[in-house]
């Protein structure tokens, strides 16, 4: 019985520590002026089931639910702000230049993850948070005359029941088996200058299951807490 209590405490503990928000350094650009137009790029969500043996099984329904819930909650969270928000579907973009800019944003986001959050440091990027898509980024929302674009990307897994049981069994024996986890990345791009003015990474906590409306709400609140919007 003591072991079981210990194991449960262990689960609870890992559950808590997963919530770990990190804020990217804000730049000297500051907040967008009131009434700026912000494009809410449809979130890129990939969720999978983590099976007992550790395989990941992509779950299209979870990804869809997560995408819809996050889209709704981001919109709700920003409604009180003094900006104009507009939903933006990256797959509907036809202009090849804009398409390449969206790809560039993916690449820059990966670099930020690697060099600002990862173990590698770039000798040329030791001081301020200084990343940009370069001039001409306004082509992303060219026909909409937007000032900013907000991107949200999520990759994550949820453990199956079997995986959780295995984790408990292993915990009793003193070994640890990772359960599923979900990371959310957000970035705000100033389309006039191309600069990424804000970047954030959140690891979803136990109460922030984005497959549910309530969970998505909690997740988005943490994610956008420090956003300069």
């Amino acid at each position, binding site marked *: 019985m003591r072991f079981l209590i210990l194991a449960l405490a262990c689960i609870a503990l890992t559950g808590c520590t997963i919530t770990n928000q990190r804020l990217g350094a804000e730049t000297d650009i500051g907040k967008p002026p009131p009434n700026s137009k912000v494009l809410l790029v449809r979130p890129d969500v990939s969720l999978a089931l983590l099976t007992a043996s550790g*395989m990941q*099984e992509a779950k*299209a329904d979870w990804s869809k639910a997560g995408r819809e819930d996050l889209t709704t909650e981001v919109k709700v969270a920003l409604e009180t702000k003094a900006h104009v928000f507009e939903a933006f579907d990256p797959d509907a973009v036809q202009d090849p230049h804009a398409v390449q800019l969206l790809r560039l944003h993916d690449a820059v986001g990966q670099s930020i*993850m690697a060099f600002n*959050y990862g173990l590698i440091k770039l000798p040329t990027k030791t001081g301020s948070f200084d990343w940009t898509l370069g001039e001409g980024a306004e082509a992303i929302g060219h026909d909409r005359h937007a000032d900013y674009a907000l991107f949200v990307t999520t990759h*994550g*897994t949820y453990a199956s029941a079997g995986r959780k049981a295995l984790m408990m069994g292993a915990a009793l024996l003193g070994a*640890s088996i*990772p359960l599923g986890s979900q990371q959310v990345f957000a970035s705000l791009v100033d389309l006039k200058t191309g600069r990424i003015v804000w970047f954030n990474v959140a690891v979803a906590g136990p109460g922030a299951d984005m497959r549910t409306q309530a969970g998505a709400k909690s997740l988005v609140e943490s994610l956008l807490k420090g956003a300069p919007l």
Partner: protein
Amino acid sequence: MNRLTASRRLAAALLVGCTALTGAANAQTTPNLRAPHLKPDLTTAEGGIWDQSDKAESHVRASAELDSDPVLTAYVGGVVCRVAPEYCGDLRTYVLDRPVFNAAAAPNGYVEVNSGLLLRVRDEDELAFVLGHEVSHFARNHTFARFQAQKNTANAMMVLTAGITIAAAGAAYSTARAGGPYAGQNINTISSTARSLNDLVYLSSIASLFSFSREEETEADQLGFQRAQHAGYRPGASVDLWNGELDEARASDFPKVRTSEVRASIFDTHPVTSDRIAALTAMGAGVVPAAASPATTADAARRYRAVVRPHLGDWLKDDLRRRDYGQTLFLIDRLAGEGEDLGLLSFYRGETYRHRRAPGDDALALASYRAATVQPDAPAAAWRELGQACHKAGDQACAKDAFSRYIEHDPKAQDRWLVEADLKSMQQAGGS
């Protein structure tokens, strides 16, 4: 096929469930095929694989590698429909400018065909066999079968090790790290999320959708052969294609490629062994007339060349990026063997020698450029490169003549000013 016995039906049904465990399919068995217009439920594992495939497809749609020629794409898509009329509405074909022999059909109907494949097949018949092969993976839903097999293997491994106390934890963890199609995406810490978002990891998870077992490759060979034959293509084309691939492997600069019969491609789970060729030869022999007359074959090659001609130069240029000059020269020789496009092909032969820079290659490049310029289809660049080669060899008269001819052929060339500057400095040097 109406004489299919009950036991064979059973065998075929079993094959669906445990493809990875059974041996090669009986050559005469018609296995279960997926129904056209299939669309799995979102909540299923298959729905998850479709979702992944959809993402790969939209990734490709925005890719700079996507070939922009609608005529070529429509042509390749047309061949796909000829070998798979029942799935014609389900399959979306994309030509990608990648210099690698490869094609694939994802479970959601996304079909990618590399330009490196189109450069290597000699006629539509060979192309039809490859596309029939890929469509057969699609029709038999091999990606999903593979996923199930991997899942079963992972589960079996876990059950085996679960009894060995702590080892179970280690094994399951290492399975997560090393196995399974999405294992690369396993992420537990913020620092490792950097990897999870990495494009390479993403692509490798997509590539895993296209990795099949030997049995599945053999089956796709058989079914692809049947499809191409049914659509009226030459039965011998499959054997010709694989023989051509073996010949090209032997022409490689790299000893490892030359000695290995396995090609690093979509077929890498299955070596292009003589066994496979023998099996296809046997199939061809069963449906005589296996051998088409040489005139018919040459005719088919000419028709195919007419389709790909506008892209030939770009594809050869791309092929040089692989830096396997032995193979590029082999390809050029084979293409030239058909007696067409000799100016363009000679020019790229020269380019290959120029890039290779082995002893004696300067002279070979010069001779190739010279041979190119006497052909009516020589690209203007052949004169410029001939000029450079002559200049390098110290033959100033030849260089001056070639540079002047380059400007004559392409008066609007972007590098005209450079060539004119070269000409001028040569005239001054000659005058002093």
